């Protein structure tokens, strides 16, 4: 176990921060760190908060974190912002909203940028949650802009997902298009003091009712990675389904924050009661293993391509119609297939 891991487990803030930096940079040795930390995890509640830009996510998260802190619980927040696809740079502004927890070290807030070129942001988020969990945080909040597959993957790291909808955020079609109904366990109409809030609540309710009665409702049932046995587990545990509640808040004044926390707690109880918490954890780890396998196998293949002189020559051959992409792939993968098949034959 490295000094850094020991320092993190001992509760040193700078060590936690450095571990997350290593995760973000994928510095040499970060995998060993995560491996060492894994056995110390499993105690934190993880909440994902997503919604369109300007919905009030950071402000709500700030108030939620402050309330947890008043109750004597420690909090870790990961806020993900987009980065420029051109310069790779980013201005990470979510910290500005964290005024209620200023100077409080037991409220650990970390901004992460979606470093496009490195990819695997959802992996980095999962690992950062691992670090915060191992550090001993009671509550972990992952906050992200809710658009696109990447974000959906990220919120899957959470036990409970809250979707923020600002009033007047468009007609029904917009909501469907974003696919937010599938991922939310709790819906929040923030800025509920604005005109149109009632209408948004009503629309949301209609939309949610439209899909009720679906077995296994909620985002975790919708994942392609859900294994068959997970579905079987859900059936065994009875037919109780979760109807996502809609909470109205005015986050900047702290109104409705208690209601929101109660809704989160209700969902937590539901997860425990039905055994779905364990089911979700299983799905999550299965997905993580699959992702890592895919990434690592991909890297092996990139190296193999380099050893064979790079991809360009294959592209040339394909353009010249001497070969085709499928044949190229078969050729590159052939040695790998042989390796994997060999021991099976011996057995």
């Amino acid at each position, binding site marked *: 176990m490295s000094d850094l891991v020991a320092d993190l487990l001992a509760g040193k803030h700078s060590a936690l921060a450095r571990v*997350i930096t290593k995760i973000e940079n994928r510095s040499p040795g970060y995998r060993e760190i995560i491996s060492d930390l894994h056995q110390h995890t499993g105690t934190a509640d993880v909440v994902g908060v997503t919604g369109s830009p300007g919905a009030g996510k950071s402000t709500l998260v700030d108030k939620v974190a402050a309330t947890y802190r008043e109750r004597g619980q420690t909090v870790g927040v990961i806020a993900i912002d987009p980065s420029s696809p051109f310069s790779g740079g980013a201005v990470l502004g979510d910290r500005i909203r964290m005024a209620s927890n200023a100077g409080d070290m037991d409220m650990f807030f970390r901004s992460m940028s979606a470093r496009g070129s490195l990819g695997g942001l959802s992996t980095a988020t999962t690992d950062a949650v691992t670090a915060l969990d191992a550090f001993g945080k009671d509550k972990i909040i992952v906050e992200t802009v809710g658009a696109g597959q990447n974000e959906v993957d990220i919120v899957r790291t959470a036990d409970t997902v809250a979707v923020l909808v600002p009033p007047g955020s468009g007609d029904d079609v917009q909501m469907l298009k974003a696919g937010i109904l599938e991922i939310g366990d709790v819906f929040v109409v923030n800025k509920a003091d604005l005109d149109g809030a009632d209408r948004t609540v009503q629309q949301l309710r209609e939309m949610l009712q439209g899909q009720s009665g679906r077995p296994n409702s909620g985002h975790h049932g919708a994942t392609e990675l859900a294994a068959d046995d997970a579905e079987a587990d859900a059936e065994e545990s009875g037919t109780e389904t979760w109807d996502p509640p809609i909470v109205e808040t005015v986050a900047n004044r702290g109104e409705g924050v208690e209601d929101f926390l109660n809704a989160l707690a209700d969902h937590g109880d539901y997860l425990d009661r039905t055994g779905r918490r364990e089911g979700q954890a299983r799905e999550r780890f299965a997905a993580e293993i699959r992702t890592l396998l895919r990434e690592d196998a991909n890297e092996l293949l990139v190296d193999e391509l380099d050893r064979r002189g790079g991809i360009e020559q294959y592209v040339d051959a394909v353009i010249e119609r001497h070969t085709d992409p499928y044949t190229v792939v078969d050729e590159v993968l052939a040695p790998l297939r042989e390796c994997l098949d060999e021991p099976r034959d011996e057995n």
Partner: protein
Amino acid sequence: MSVEQEQTERTIRCLVAKVGLDGHDRGAHVIARALRDAGFEVIYSGLHRAPDEVVQAAVQEDVDVVGISILSGAHNTLVPKILDGLKEYDAFDDRLILVGGIVPDDDQEELRGQGVDEIFGPGASMEEMIDYIHQNAPER
């Protein structure tokens, strides 16, 4: 190969912090954008931060560069508090500490003595600052 590439392209993280009561953040905004366009990740603190908030941000965000903007003239009070806080959390040695603002020559010497790495006054160019950060960003 990939490891080398990642190391040379390590993303530098900068905190741009406005401390104390001065409300002039135009410059800080311009700097935040320039640093972003230079490929850095910039964490902007917002206005009117207390020294311990700056310390909290610098530690938790694990920034390479702590940029402190003060135009109120209170640098002799505020900067040492930040430096002490960083030392307390073991986050001083491997961080570049920059101060931006109007700092008289005598004070500059004092601040440097306390651990400020560089001070950028009026007229300092963006290129100058970005080059300085590229050259002096701590090895980690």
